[in-house]
């Protein structure tokens, strides 16, 4: 009886074996898929290659739906990420949004300046008319003048610092605002100047330049350098248009009157008090300029008087002007004959200049470089060369020849 049964088994095997194999394969596939679903890492591996495309397709089809679905999750994830690792988040975002913000701020300021300009142009009030006129006189856009009034320059500290050692020779600062150690600040500032000067002169293969300005957060440090020491003027707001000229003037006065005392430790304390008055004078001038915005009508009256006075003195200007231009315009004479009166022609250097010993490009140069913006006395002119002396007043510490294009004649001084 076993034979029929065996036969059935054989028959069953023949008929069902393929189905059983398929079923087993399906079961294995099902188990594998189930295992993947239960294992987040494995599921991620499977979904990752297609999730981008799927999300993109869904976003194209219904952007609002995707936004609504992702927003709560994303917002929570971002919040958590920012809380846990602010620095990394900022580091990642700044390169992308930093320039955008800067451009946006710049455009906003330009738009503001344009609106202010437009309002001033259309204005009919006396104050605004005077303001517009005053801006023209000073050669700056009216909008900038308004911003200047809105963000007045506030002096925080003025330091006289030795060029080489970085030690403070004299100082004046508002202790309630400037809470840093002045000596450390001066030394660090000098180190930064040294670094900037030497590093950039290496790059440019030119003579060392000078760091004129430093901006840190809302603080601005304006600097001007003399032969022995430099002045650092620390403040906030919009610096006066003639800030560097003021610093040059201060430097000239200090070098002329206090140079030796400042370098003598025995006299430093005594001279500090005397110098402080000069530094504060600089600050007071600053305050005067700030207050100019509030007394525009008074300024208009003063200006009108000045215009009247200038008109009355017109003939004098007419008589003096040819003499002033004599040093600038080419003449056939090789040397200019000194004027009978003690009149000085003063020029401002248009670039850093190392004067020559004689009016010849092959001539030896002096060891000192005069910086752009320095005021010098014009002594003579020969062809394309100008003979200069520095400083303008008092005995010259430096005298030499420079190319005429390096200087702009500004005035004659009594």
């Amino acid at each position, binding site marked *: 009886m076993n034979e029929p049964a065996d036969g059935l088994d054989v028959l069953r095997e023949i008929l069902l074996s393929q189905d059983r194999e398929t079923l087993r394969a399906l079961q294995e596939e099902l188990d594998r898929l189930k295992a993947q679903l239960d294992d987040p890492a494995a599921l991620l591996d499977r979904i990752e290659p297609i999730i981008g495309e799927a999300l993109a397709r869904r976003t194209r089809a219904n952007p609002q739906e995707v936004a609504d679905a992702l927003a709560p999750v994303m917002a929570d994830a971002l919040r958590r990420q920012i809380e846990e690792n602010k620095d990394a988040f900022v580091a990642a975002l700044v390169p992308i949004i930093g320039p955008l913000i800067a451009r946006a701020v710049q455009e906003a300021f330009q738009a503001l300046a344009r609106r202010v300009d437009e309002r001033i142009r259309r204005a009919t009030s006396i104050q605004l008319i005077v303001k517009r006129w005053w801006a023209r006189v000073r050669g700056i856009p009216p909008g900038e003048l308004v911003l200047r009034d809105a963000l007045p320059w506030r002096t925080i500290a003025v330091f006289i610092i030795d060029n080489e050692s970085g030690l403070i020779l004299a100082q004046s600062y508002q202790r309630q605002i400037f809470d840093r150690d002045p000596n*450390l600040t001066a030394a660090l500032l000098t180190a930064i100047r040294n670094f900037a000067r030497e590093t950039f002169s290496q790059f440019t293969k030119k003579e060392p330049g000078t760091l004129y300005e430093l901006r840190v957060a809302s603080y601005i440090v304006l600097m001007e350098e003399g032969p022995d020491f430099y002045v650092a003027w620390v403040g906030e707001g919009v610096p006066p248009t003639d800030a560097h000229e003021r610093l040059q003037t201060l430097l000239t006065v200090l070098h002329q009157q206090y140079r030796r005392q400042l370098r003598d430790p025995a006299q430093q304390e005594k001279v500090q008090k005397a110098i402080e008055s000069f530094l504060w004078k600089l600050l007071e001038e600053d305050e005067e300029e700030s207050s100019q915005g509030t007394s525009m009508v008074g300024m208009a009256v003063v200006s009108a008087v000045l215009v009247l006075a200038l008109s009355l003195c017109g003939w004098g200007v007419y008589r003096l002007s040819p003499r002033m231009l004599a040093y600038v315009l080419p003449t056939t004479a090789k040397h200019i004959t000194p004027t009978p009166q003690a009149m000085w022609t003063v020029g401002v250097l248009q670039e850093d200049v190392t004067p020559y010993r004689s009016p010849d490009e092959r001539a030896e140069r002096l060891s000192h470089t005069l910086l752009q913006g320095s005021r010098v006395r014009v002594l003579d002119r020969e062809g394309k060369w100008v003979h200069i002396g520095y400083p303008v007043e008092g005995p010259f510490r430096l005298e030499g020849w420079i190319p005429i294009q390096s200087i702009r004649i500004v005035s004659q001084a009594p």
Partner: protein
Amino acid sequence: MHRKLFKVCMIGDFAVGKTSLVQRFMYNEFRMDYQATIGVNISKKEVIHPSLPAGRITLIIWDLAGGEPFTPVVEAYYRGAMGALFVADVTRPSTVEHLATYIRDFRSVSPHAQGLILLNKIDLLSSSPTSVDELKAVAESFGMPVYLTSARTGQNVEEAFTALGHRLVEQGAYE
């Protein structure tokens, strides 16, 4: 009247302990981790001693990065210095030999400045006094007073800075 404010440079190879010496002198502390100085660190410290004029002077200490070649930037940092502490590591004899170059470069910029040599990390070399004597002899050949110091234990650190202060004041008296 004497000068009261002095610029002083810390000069020597990298990792000889210049910054650690300054930290020991400034804050009386020592850090085991090493952080290389980039460019220059500047600190201010008063040296108070009864023998000094008015009992105190102030040092502005320029702690320069070690092992830098003598570039114009380094030259600018040396400029105007009234004193220098040349630092070497007693566990690395080559750092003592290198002092000759540092001293020559520094002297070329500030010829009248005062100098002291500090052989640092003396605490790590207690087992072989002979080698210390040899290194000290090499250092003394550079013509400056030599101090064996340890920023870790504080040995001779205050003394070295105070000695430099005295030398600066003495020099200042003849300016």
